[in-house]
């Protein structure tokens, strides 16, 4: 049991849930940035950031198998495919 800033004892589960809530909020922010970004390469990078937050979430939810498959696929392979595809079209999205 660790103590919080007012001296009450906090269970480890509560800290885990707090980190999970923080990761979820940050991933929502990354998704928003990815959708609003006009430069598609930057949008792919924001999407990869969102994937890494999700990988942390999966790890905290005690699914290390999914985290292990989410990291190479979400951060390595899908951005790779998307960047190859963007290089065949235009990099900047028009209104």
């Amino acid at each position, binding site marked *: 049991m660790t103590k919080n800033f007012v001296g009450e004892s906090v269970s480890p589960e509560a800290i885990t849930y707090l980190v999970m809530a923080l990761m979820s909020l940050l991933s929502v922010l990354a998704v928003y940035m990815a959708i609003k970004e006009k430069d598609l390469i930057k949008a792919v990078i924001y999407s990869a950031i969102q994937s890494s937050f999700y990988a942390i979430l999966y790890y905290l939810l005690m699914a*290390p*198998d999914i985290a292990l498959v989410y990291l*190479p696929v979400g951060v390595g*392979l899908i951005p790779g*495919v998307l960047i*190859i595809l963007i290089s*065949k079209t235009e990099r900047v999205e028009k209104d």
Partner: protein
Amino acid sequence: MKPSEVITIVSLVLSIALLLTLAYVYLVPSTSVRDLAVFYLYTTYNPVEKYTAYSPEGVTAIVWDYRGLDTLFETAVFYLALIAGLALARRLFAETTVSSARAGLSTIVKTVTRLTAPMIIAVGASIGLHGHLTPGGGFQGGSTIAVAPLLIIVIFSVYYLLASGLTTNKMLALRSMGLAGIGLTAISALLVGLLKGEHAYVFQNMPKPDSLVGLPSHIGEFLISGTLWFFNLFEAMAVAAGFTMAFIVLLLVKEVSGNERRDH
């Protein structure tokens, strides 16, 4: 960011928070475990139990032993998707010639890639081949290994990869070998049973009470969990080769269409 968007996002987050607050009783998992989970956890590594899979990693045991047929069909679907992708690009990569390997990024990036690519492959092999002991498995290891050819393609150019011998035909052969290996492993216990004239099942891993044919759980002192190690090995091979082939084809299509545009 316009004020209306800020209001939309804040109200969305607050409403979801309210919903979660009201529904948290149903979202927080209960402390009791379902009967099926108890069975899996009890039998996954239990030498005195008759239905054990001899794998301390319950997820891999479920994926490749208890529910092996599902994973076999997933692998087949992935294979068919790759075959369809190759069929779309069949004329484009067939007529490509290997040009000079002088392309790519700077020497610093290339040196770093030369150092990290073998490490990525080693980590991927570790994840894949230890899938029956630690979290991980064939697909995880294979997709980690596939990051290394992707890095080499991006940093050294695709011709470097082709000149070093990783052609699409070899990748296709490796992919097919992986799938054939998965199929053979699935019916290995059945084949042994047919040869010995005993009763055996498809996708059988360990000996069962009504079928004493099965694969060994250990080779020497090393735990291989019967079929699980072979499934992970072949799946990692198939996935790594499949992703590499897809990347080569994607980039070669670009190069060839550029040449064609120049000719016309």
